[in-house]
């Protein structure tokens, strides 16, 4: 019976894990695109500031960033963000910066001729981007994106550093009672999670394989 009880408890933790995962993706994917436009901006000061920001976020452990979001506002007497929102804020900013670099690489890899072809056909800049460039970028960035998204699944475990009970923390809680095996049991959950994502990305890549860039 204990096995099923613990499995249910871990599934509760998995809910939190999934919530962090989905909220991060939903917000970081578009935010990353905006940041990538910033770092590619022809307005040099904006490009510089954006690049420094990305350097800081990518250069500091995500765990530390979670601490910063959760604790630092308190130093200034501001109200704390709750634990869970703190995790989301830290994750969204962190992942948006990684995504922005993937987007930038993808966008810059599209040949200039594609823009020019659109332009001489009388298309507007926004039309060229959304109708011609974007789909090619999506195809290019799918493999690095799948990497990042899989990493995100496992990074959710960092939420436990400020006592957000996600999958791993749910298992760890049993260790206090001398029950250690649930911690290792979580690997099964992560592996299934990542397995499904791998299949999903494989499906998308196949869907886009009808053309070559």
């Amino acid at each position, binding site marked *: 019976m204990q096995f099923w009880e613990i499995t249910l408890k871990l599934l509760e933790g998995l809910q939190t894990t999934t919530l962090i995962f989905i909220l991060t993706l939903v917000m970081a994917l578009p935010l990353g695109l905006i940041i990538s436009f910033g770092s590619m901006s022809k307005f040099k000061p904006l490009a510089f500031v954006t690049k420094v920001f990305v350097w800081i976020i990518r250069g500091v452990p995500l765990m530390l960033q979670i601490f910063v979001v959760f604790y630092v506002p308190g130093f200034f007497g501001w109200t704390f963000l709750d634990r869970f929102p703190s995790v989301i804020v830290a994750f969204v900013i962190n992942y948006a910066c990684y995504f922005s670099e993937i987007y930038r690489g993808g966008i810059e890899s599209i*040949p200039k*001729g*594609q823009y*020019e*072809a*659109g*332009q*001489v*056909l*009388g*298309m507007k800049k926004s*039309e060229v981007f959304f*109708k*011609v460039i974007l*789909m*090619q970028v999506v*195809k290019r960035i799918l493999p690095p994106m799948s990497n990042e998204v899989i990493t995100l699944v496992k990074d959710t475990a960092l939420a436990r550093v400020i006592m957000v009970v996600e999958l791993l923390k749910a298992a760890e809680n049993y260790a206090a009672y001398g029950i250690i095996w649930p911690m290792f049991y979580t690997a099964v959950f992560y592996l299934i999670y990542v397995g499904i994502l791998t299949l999903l990305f494989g499906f998308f890549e196949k869907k886009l394989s*009808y*053309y*070559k*860039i």
Partner: protein
Amino acid sequence: MAFLQINGLKKSFGSVEVLKGIDLSLEKGQVLSIIGPSGSGKTTLLRCLNNLEEADGGEVWIDGQRRELVGGKTFGLVFQSFNLFPQYTTIENLTLAPKLRAKEKVKKQKLGHDVLKAEYEAINKRAEELLATVGLSEKRDFYPCQLSGGQQQRVSIARALMMHPDVLFFDEPTSALDPEITGEVLKVIKELAALDMTMVIITHEMKFAHDVSDKIVFMDGGVIAAEGSPDEVFSSDNERLQEFLSAFNG
């Protein structure tokens, strides 16, 4: 004034003056070929005329109107590297831009959905016709990666024609093709010339330039070093031109 009139077109990249004041004129329905060595400014000239580069000075007139001020009068450009949109089929490559313009027009003038549908049908019909013109009707639903280089270039010619250009420009349209395939593209261009399409062609195919052109311009070092009818240019005693041409006769 000629149909296409270019006066004193200038362009520098940094301290390098690539175009040192180009004057050109072309009548409606005529074909002009531009020949000359690499780095002579041929491609830059075409890019300036198609607003891909901003010229530093000079004027471009088309049918009596300044190029910047021209509304309906358009130029078309066929690239050396085709630049087809890889994620679209042949027919979609042709119809994408015109459909966007049609949609915009219908929206702006607040016309009904049936008007848009009729516009789209007309665009599709024109695309089918142009595909037939370049001999690729059976490839309408193929993606660019499924076509040979010559076929891709013919699609890109049809795509440029979709916009009803007053002048169609070609930037070395066969330089990326192997010699065997070159012929099929040149044939299409010749057919367009027979249909009185006004065209400006940068090319290294000397025999083709001689046969298809009403006028040939030899560019060297950012200036027009020689110009005239094909026979005049090919028999010119301009030393630099003779040196250039002799390279092609091996």
